[in-house]
């Protein structure tokens, strides 16, 4: 939505055809601005600096560390685990977060529209509880679910099978999707409420099938929410480090060493704060890239159809 159509009264003598920055705005921005600057901006600058040093958590380089310039960067480029970690992160974040949680959230919301009240209430409650549980609990619950004699093994066949260690990335990804789908559902429920009923009713009268109705009418209208949700899920999945760490510790081997886990390991297990920070910076850049992509995708169709943001 363009706020450019608002007409707050500009000071006299200035151009009226161009939007101006009102200094009054800064008062409103100040509280948030100060807090964000104090924490994030400082932390990011510090992190980018540390990423180029050999600072350690412990050991001789804990206090007497040096700026090492591109040494960490060349290590990154030659690091076989980094690419592997990047790939795992892609599967975890994009697969289970963006695609998985968004699709399930949307499915839940769409199905809930026409469901019986008790079914709808039960589903909403379970999905939301899954979202609201603290990460520690989610990790424990899913660990209990996916080990031998655990919930999934007992219910779906062989109690001695070992889902978690046979397919570790799959199960931490499932845990991730499970924990985020509730939020996606909330967003789609709201978005669906904003779709005018007359369009879908008209289609029903014209005897357009449910699936086709969904595909040609509902889905395009949900597109902005899909993109929004996708970005949200990316950020939240990247932050779901605790779940992976507690379930598998990045293992077995390096099967679930996604980038947040790898960065933590380097920084806090191997004491390489410098290299760990560099890996963290890579995550930041990935997020930024994704953010840019989102803005481009979100803006494009809007401008085309003349809709305001």
């Amino acid at each position: 939505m363009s706020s450019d159509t608002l007409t707050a009264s500009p000071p006299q003598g200035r151009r009226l055809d161009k939007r101006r920055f009102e200094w009054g705005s800064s008062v409103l921005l100040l509280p948030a601005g100060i807090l964000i600057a104090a924490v994030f901006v400082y932390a990011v600058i510090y992190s980018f600096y540390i990423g180029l040093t050999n600072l350690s958590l412990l050991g001789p380089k804990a206090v007497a560390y040096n700026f090492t310039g591109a040494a960490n960067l060349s290590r990154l480029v030659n690091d076989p685990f980094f690419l592997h970690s990047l790939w795992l992160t892609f599967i975890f974040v994009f697969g289970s977060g963006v695609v998985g949680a968004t699709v399930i959230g949307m499915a839940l919301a769409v199905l809930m529209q026409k469901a019986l009240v008790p079914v709808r209430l039960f589903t909403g409650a379970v999905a939301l509880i899954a979202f609201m549980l603290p990460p520690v609990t989610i990790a424990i619950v899913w660990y209990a679910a996916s080990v031998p004699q655990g919930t999934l093994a007992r219910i779906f066949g062989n109690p001695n099978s070992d889902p978690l260690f046979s397919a570790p990335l799959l199960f931490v990804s499932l845990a991730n999707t499970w924990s985020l789908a509730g939020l996606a559902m909330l967003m789609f429920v709201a978005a669906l409420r904003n779709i005018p009923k007359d369009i879908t009713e008209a289609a029903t009268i014209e005897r357009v099938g449910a699936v086709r109705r969904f595909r040609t009418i509902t889905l395009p209208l949900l597109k902005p929410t899909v993109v929004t949700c996708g970005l949200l899920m990316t950020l939240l999945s990247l932050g779901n480090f605790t779940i992976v760490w507690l379930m598998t510790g990045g293992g077995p081997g390096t099967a679930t060493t996604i980038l947040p886990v790898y960065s933590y390991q380097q920084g806090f297990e191997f004491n390489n704060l410098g290299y760990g920070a560099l890996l963290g910076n890579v995550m930041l850049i990935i997020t930024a890239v994704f953010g840019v992509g989102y803005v481009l995708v979100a803006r494009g169709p809007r401008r085309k159809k003349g809709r305001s943001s």
Partner: protein
Amino acid sequence: MTSATEVVRPAADFHGLKRVAVRRVTAPGILNNLILGAIAVLFAIPLLWLVLASIDKHASWSIALPHFTLSNFSSSLSAGRGQSLVVSLELASIATVVATVTGTLAAYVFSRRHIPWKGAALLFVLFLSGVPINVIIIPMYQIFSQAGWLSVVPTAVFIGITGLPFEIWMIKNFIDAVPAELEEAARIENVSTLKIIWRVVVPLAAPGIGAAAIYGFVNAWGSFLIPLVLISNSAQQPGAVTVYSFISAAGVNYGDIAAFSILYSIPVVVLYLAMGRFFRGGFVLGGALK
């Protein structure tokens, strides 16, 4: 709201005409409910362990018929752990208020006012949402320890700040969908901007602000590394940290952990139900048709 069985109720004297009640159980309707129900059950399966273990005297990580006991609930709160739930409430409330209040103000500006390079600024705010915790924690620890802030309240403010970029972005989208014209009348009367925000914008964007607040609360509720590092008094650790006290070198106390986790989750669920009033009004998200 339609349901699987479509019922057209007879309304007396509806324009003088009488309707006939028709009951139709539609096939798509049943399928709809079945699929939804199946998904819901799949979601509930992992939670099964949580419930069973919490009432099991000999809980382990496997699922079994419980030796029924409620003692896990009381023992999980022993040794000062109940106190940690109170600390969690304190921590999360302060964090949520800090983030939501400052976030709403900032979101209003992003939505309504002109800011040079607004697009880039917005992206920058999003970018900040992605900063991983272990990156921030070390410089923050230095600052906090030098300022003498290694206690609950400053930590709570800090946790709120970690959720702030996200909240700004979410609330901004909701405010976008509130028609700007509604503020025109107030502006003409020279009402101050703050008043406009509180009286016009916030009530209309309430569902969205509520959603952002829930996100902020959940974010703070589950925060583990930050309180562990920044709160030096161990009696003041929140529940997310205390849950580790059930894990010792001798083994994991599964029954207590499950019971504690259930108790620990209750406040968040209560919060959601309490805010249900806001959500029933309907979200107005960015991307809605105007």
